[in-house]
Structures are given as structure tokens and as C-alpha cells.
């Protein structure tokens, strides 16, 4: 399956796009997504390690399956306020 991942802040800047699309098996989890992101975009390796993955606007732990996800985002450490 193809999954689009929204990028923000330093991740968006490093990749030069506001989203990227990765191909994953249908059984892929958040952990698999992280590995695929790092493998295809080594420039954000360190940032991915420090980021959360949001699935449908909820922070998702590594074991969550993403097949049904409508919207996935990479959430680097936040600095609002």
C-alpha cells in the first residue's frame, strides 16, 4: 500500500516537501513506517527518532497498524506557546 506522510518544521525543510509517500506492506505498523522513512530519507534519520507519528491526528505507538489510517503525520518535538 502507498501511504502519504505529512511533514512539518525541520522535517519539511530538510526533505524540501510538505509530504512524502512511502510504499509499505498492508500489515505495516508505525514502527515499520519509521524504518521506511529513515531508509528512504536518511536526511531526517535523527529527527524521526525523536518524533512522534500521528495517525488520524492521534499520537500512535509503534505497534499500531496503519492500513486504515486516513492521515499520517510525522510530528517532530513541538515548540509552540
Amino acid at each position, binding site marked *: 500500500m502507498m501511504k502519504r506522510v*505529512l511533514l*512539518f*518544521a*525541520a522535517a519539511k*525543510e530538510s526533505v524540501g516537501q510538505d509530504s512524502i509517500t512511502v510504499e509499505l506492506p498492508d500489515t505495516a505498523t508505525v*514502527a515499520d513506517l*519509521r*524504518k521506511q*522513512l*529513515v531508509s528512504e530519507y536518511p536526511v531526517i534519520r535523527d*529527527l*524521526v*527518532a*525523536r*518524533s*512522534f507519528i*500521528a495517525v488520524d*491526528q492521534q*499520537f*500512535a*505507538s*509503534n*505497534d499500531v497498524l496503519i492500513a486504515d489510517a486516513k492521515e499520517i*503525520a510525522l*510530528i*517532530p*518535538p*513541538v*515548540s*509552540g*506557546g
Partner: protein
Amino acid sequence: MVSITHNPIDTAAVLASVKDADCGANVLFVGTTRRMTGKRETTRLEYECYEEMARAKMMSLVDAARDRWPIVKTSIVHRVGVVEIGEASIAVAVSAAHRSASFDAASWLLERLKQEVPVWKREVWADGQEEWIHPQGEAAPVTKDDSDRDSTKATP
């Protein structure tokens, strides 16, 4: 009231939005762009957010605060885009019958917001450097089960 705006924040309106005849204690926090960080000078900040999620997270923080304290009305307004020195990037207002609830809830909302709400600032320094701020250290735990850590997972 929870909102994200590209325009200057009307802080008096944020305070007025929590006004209630049964509340004697109104607390307004206004976060502004600070000029100096130690000896380093900031020119301006630029904020970006994941808007739908940021709004949802702020609303859930307001709900959580209402569960913890007997607060009556709460407003959070976050500005995005360029925020010049002295301008407000965030305003949080809370009203309650008594002041301890207002102070504690407002302070807690800021604390949680800075850890959980997907908003990021880019610091434009007077020395010409620019950088997205992604704090190191403690991040909000995603789930109760933090056991399967690996190098590609956020360090909690």
C-alpha cells in the same frame, strides 16, 4: 474558545471571552516573542502548525483541565506565521470562582500545550542564523506501554 490565527491576537478579547458572573478569578497568560535568550538576540519567530490536530489537541487539553479543576470558561488562541518581538504568539485565559483553580489550570494548560500541541517555532536570530526549534529531552509519552524502544522511535 480555541483558535489558531494568522493575525495579531486581541488579548483583551481573549480575557473577555472567559468572563462569567459566577467567576471571581480570571487569569490571562500572554506569551510574547522575547528579544534576548541569554546573550543571543532574536529578530523574530515564525510559527507553523498542523492545524486540525493542533486545534483538536487544544480542545482535549481544555476538556482535561475542566476535569481536573472547577474552572468555568477557558480560551486558547495560538498565532502562526511571523511573530515580531513583543507580539503575542499565545494567549490562554481561564475563569473560575476562586483564584487557585484559575492559576493552576492556566499554568498546566501552557505546560501541556508546549509538550503536546503540534506547533513549531522557527527562530530567526539577529546573527543571521535560522533554525526550527525541536526541544531535546522528555517528550509526552504516547501510550502506557513504552517497552519496545528502538532507534527509530521517539525517546520518551
